[in-house]
């Protein structure tokens, strides 16, 4: 229970970041941790860069992660894995969905999507865990479980028994999607293990 941790979720508005962070929180709470999570609503949600900050431990006061102190980042888009670099430190782990979503300047031909963008992380000794979450979700049989694939990939780095996650998925997901979500979670875990 001495473990405390800071997880930064990042992506693009509408990618379902909040759901993935919620499943992770339920597992942490079930395992007996205190937690706080900070989200931003309103204007930022309209297709812009979005983050959620999750902190857990024996007792959590601040809902915000200090710069340089994110142990793990869950990035749902490649460029959004790099945007929050000042929050990371050497040895931070970045789990990244290998998806590209073009920002307006790129989509309208004004700018280019940066090449080898994840190199900014690896050259600073940040551990990158790429996850082809959409492909894996498709193989599992339901593209909408890409989020849960990511949660699975994250779970390997958290001090929580996988059985707790499975219980969370069993109790929180509607019955007809239960099995496919459990499979997505297991497939995500395999990527990180």
């Amino acid at each position, binding site marked *: 229970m001495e473990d405390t941790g800071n997880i930064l979720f990042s992506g*693009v*508005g509408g990618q379902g970041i909040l759901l993935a962070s*919620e499943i992770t*929180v*339920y597992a942490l*709470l*079930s395992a007996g941790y*205190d*937690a*706080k*999570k*900070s*989200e*931003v*609503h*309103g*204007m*930022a*949600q*309209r*297709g*812009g*860069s979005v983050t959620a900050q999750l902190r857990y431990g024996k007792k*959590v*006061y*601040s*809902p*915000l992660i*200090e*710069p*340089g*102190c994110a142990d793990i980042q869950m990035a749902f888009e490649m*460029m*959004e894995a*790099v*945007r929050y*670099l*000042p929050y*990371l*430190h050497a040895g931070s782990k970045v789990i990244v969905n290998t998806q590209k979503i*073009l*920002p*307006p*300047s*790129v*989509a*309208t*031909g004004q*700018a*280019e*999507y*940066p090449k080898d*963008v994840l190199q*900014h992380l690896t050259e*600073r000794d940040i551990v990158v865990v790429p996850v082809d979450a959409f492909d894996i979700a498709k193989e599992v049989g339901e593209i909408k479980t890409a989020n849960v694939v990511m949660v699975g990939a994250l779970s390997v780095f958290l001090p929580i028994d996988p059985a707790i996650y499975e219980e969370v998925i069993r109790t929180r997901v509607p019955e007809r999607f239960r099995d496919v979500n459990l499979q997505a979670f297991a497939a995500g875990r395999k990527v990180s293990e």
Partner: protein
Amino acid sequence: MTKINDKSLWMSGNEAIALGVHEAGVKVASGYPGTPSTEIMENLSKYKGVYTEWAPNEKVGLEVAIGASFAGARALATMKHVGVNVAADPLFTASYTGVCGGLVLVSADDPEMHSSQNEQDNRNYAFAAKLPMLEPSDPSEAKELVKLAFDLSEDLDTPVMLRITTRVSHVKGVVEKGEITASHAACGIQKIPGKLVMLPAIARKRRVVVEERMDKCRELAETAEFNRIEEGDTKRGFITSGVSYLYVKEAFPEAAVLKLGMCWPLPEKKIRAFAAMVDELFIVEELDPFLETHIKAMGIECRGKDCIPNQGELNTAIVRQAIEPDSGPELFEPVELPQRPPNMCAGCPHRGIFFNLSRMKVFVSGDIGCYTLGFLPPLSAMDSCVCMGASVPIAHGMAKALGDDGYNQVVSVIGDSTFIHSGITGLINTVYNNSASTLIILDNRITAMTGQQHNPTTGYNIKGEAASSLDMEALCRAVGVKHVYKVNPHDVVETRRILKEAVELQEPSVVISEAPCVLLPEMKERKPVSYFTNQENCVGCMSCIRLGCPAISWTPFTEGEAEERGYRKKQKGISKIDEILCNDCGQCASLCKFNAITRGEGK
């Protein structure tokens, strides 16, 4: 809200406040949506036993709550910080009347301006209106303090303000369920003109009561548990409130802290005692030096805004480094990446209007809503935006300043909910004082920016039950506008023709842009139809690209690629529609002159 076990829930600050309001036995609640306050009323509307509503603006919302309080019920009004400006008129005088049933106003402030036009510090309202203000640090305390606020309101005969900030509203944490309590007052009509009719002679008497009440509140603040000294290392002591308390606890966990759950009025004796305990006293607060100014006025030596920033949010690192410079870890520098600003959704009806405005030589006086995003490139079609409803009078004022040349140079743009909120009076003024500006009302049948709330135009109330629906055209005609047009903004070319006609008129005109928000549930459930690019017909003119639609992207050709693929040698690239993202609005197709965009099923 999620149940962890029988007693504990995982919920946001706003959900916790709704629970606290339910547990406090509140009967009537009214408010206007505004980030970060919106979810309080949304969640409260799901509880039984409390009447909830969306008011057309914050002034009306607070006045409804005052009325319910006068009838003896516990009542709540919710709004964002700038909404309190709108509600300030009734607020300052409700301070004189006091209450019958407990009355609480929640002000949700937005330091850092995550979703706001300013970051005013509404603690100043408590001082100015002479009202008690409670300020929780996290969801759990928010629930406790809002309950307590109703007791305090009835015990002291005063409206009470609860001030929260974005990092309380939209933070989730563990909250314990509590007992449901009841109002101390009984519901019913009471005729007490000496308390409720604020004529000068009566108001002067109530003015005395206000001071007596605040003295009582000061005494209560000395002994109340929510103003607590947490003992610790006295080398440095901290006085703090709200979310700043959390940052102090993390940055200096060993230090002595005076945690103020009530930020107005202040417990002077307790503050003096704490100041005497510690070697050096720091006041840690976001935005204005509110506590600091009042503590310094007591003649107490302390430090605050000489080291703590007076702009934006704080966090643990800012607090630590303000007091112990060079104490933080060395940070990675950010790398330069293409920005990803928020954007209007694919298929958003506002795009059709702003695309046209970007091609007209007019000054666009804008307003508050999703459509403020019309400011961003590539449309860049908004030239001013101040506050709710301001677009209409600002355009009128500009037209008057420009004189005879002004009639076709200025237009104002406002959403349906914002027009109802405070645009109507501006339009009445425009007509009455004989302006010639054009008002464009973006009627998308919902209050979209704050996450799809109903309003008087939508035909539904907060619970989704059928309600009357305001006739926008009839309203405009009733206030005296002779030229009222309706356009389908997705037909970009026809919209342009009508906009030009309206702007050239030498009398006031209104153009109502009618098309529903694509995020409405009924829009999402439509048959999956999309527009497709017939890439063989695309000549790379970029007409569709200039809409800035997230579903349309540009693929530049590499050298020689154009000829290889059978295009003109000089063609620089082609556009492509992502049929997954496409929301079937057809604006791009109405612009394409080369038959390169067609509509089809089966996306």
